């Protein structure tokens, strides 16, 4: 089992998710884009290999896309974390 990523103290209403198999606890209501940022990961790798994270955080730019519960290319800034969510950066 990979090591959990836990930079912050446990939030008041914690929910558990995984990002690239690493367990992470986030506050309920956090967006998936925020969870990926807390994990210190880029959301995706660009076509020329650059790491990318959210640019607009409002569903326009698609830089925050990642695979969530088996569905690729979800706009993670528009998506709230749910218990047990499995997130994979792209």
């Amino acid at each position, binding site marked *: 089992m990979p090591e959990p990523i836990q930079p912050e103290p446990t939030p008041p209403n914690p929910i558990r998710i995984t990002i690239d198999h690493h367990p992470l606890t986030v506050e309920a209501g956090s967006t998936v884009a925020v969870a990926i940022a807390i994990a210190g990961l880029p959301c995706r790798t660009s076509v020329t290999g650059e790491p990318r994270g959210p640019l607009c*955080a409002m569903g326009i730019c*698609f830089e925050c896309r990642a695979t969530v519960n088996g569905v690729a290319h979800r706009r993670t*800034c528009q998506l709230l974390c749910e218990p047990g969510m499995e997130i994979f950066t792209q």
Partner: protein
Amino acid sequence: MTESIQPKHFQTLVVGAGPAGIAAATSAAEAGSRVGLLDDNPDLGGQIWRTQLGKSGPDVSHGGGAEHWRNRLLASSVTRLQGWSVFDHPEPQTLRAERHEAAADFSYDQLILATGARERFLPFPGWTLPNVMGVGAIQAMVKGGLPVRGKRIVIAGSGPLLLAVAATLQTAGAVVVCIAEQASLASLAPFALSLITDPAKILQGLRYKAATIDVPFHTSSWPLEARGTDRVTSVLLSLQGRTEEIRCDYLACAFHLVPNTELPALLGCRIEHGVAAQAAVVIDELQRTSAPNIFCAGEPTGIGGLELSLLEGEIAGLAAGGQSDKARRLLPKRKSMSRFAARLAKAFTLRSELKTLPTDATIVCRCEDVTFGRLRSHPSWRAAKLHTRCGMGPCQGRVCGAATSFLLGWNADSVRPPMFPALISSLTSTEKSTAPPNSD
């Protein structure tokens, strides 16, 4: 939040649940219309009234009566449909939208488009590094739970939002190192109540609810380069002519706003290039577009800010609800607000030096990683699209279109469905009305 998805036909359908959409939906429902309010965010409020995680109710820091309008909406008969992204109109008076893995059609007698605005991003070396994001974007991330306590943040670009977001970030415990506003002192002077260098006073002058801000505010200043390897670690700023490198964890940078006109354009509403060559939806005095039974309110008709958006929403809602006389009583107020908005747009006009920021190696189209060097040899948006795939990625030119419009004078036109990359299952769904799942 409970939502009802039945019925899927509405007398008045409103797209966008920001201030203009909330005012429009509420006003139409109060006038007796059966109203659906369709929005692609998880919750009400659009960008500016987005609720902060851990708090109940909307963000009231921008003013505009956020709580008043939210309560009025919740007390009305409006059917709220959150999390739906509109991506097509399969037949007249019908929009097709996707939510999670389901698609559904929503038909209407009258449509009010309140699709808001997005930030304008301009390319400069290093702007694609992680943790370089928009100004409204970092505010949205903080509202979405991003911890910024103790983080060093530089805010750059242009517009009233820079000051407003600085206040939010400070409240969240961030160290806002400085604000670099590209507009000159002289152009902002008409909006300053007294001390031009006092950000709170400028905010007040811009008719924002004044906030306490304790941040160095530099006019005639802009970013030259974001530096770092896997994320931004410093930014090179041009501060009133001198160059300074400033260490930071985040660079929040955006150059005011551009109207979201894609859906209006797809539905055949006439778009014109008005103030500062900005594309905006053409409306008459009752917010009616050139397309039959379609109204438009708020930022898509031209960037005018929160108060004007609310008023336009009210006018559109009342007119759609059959109360045109009542709507007309609001017209003098709108006229004065529009004048203010025009002055504001002029004050934040982008300076031409910003056109020299990208080098040939700077990526302009982030979806397809097309550099400025490859783009600028082409004569038009269309030619560049065909030869470089610029604007053909998932964002469909929403980011690079506004950038090339400023940098190269191109007109990023031609909207085609699907407006967003939709799931194949949604696109191939032949059922006229796919039943959406019961919402939470």
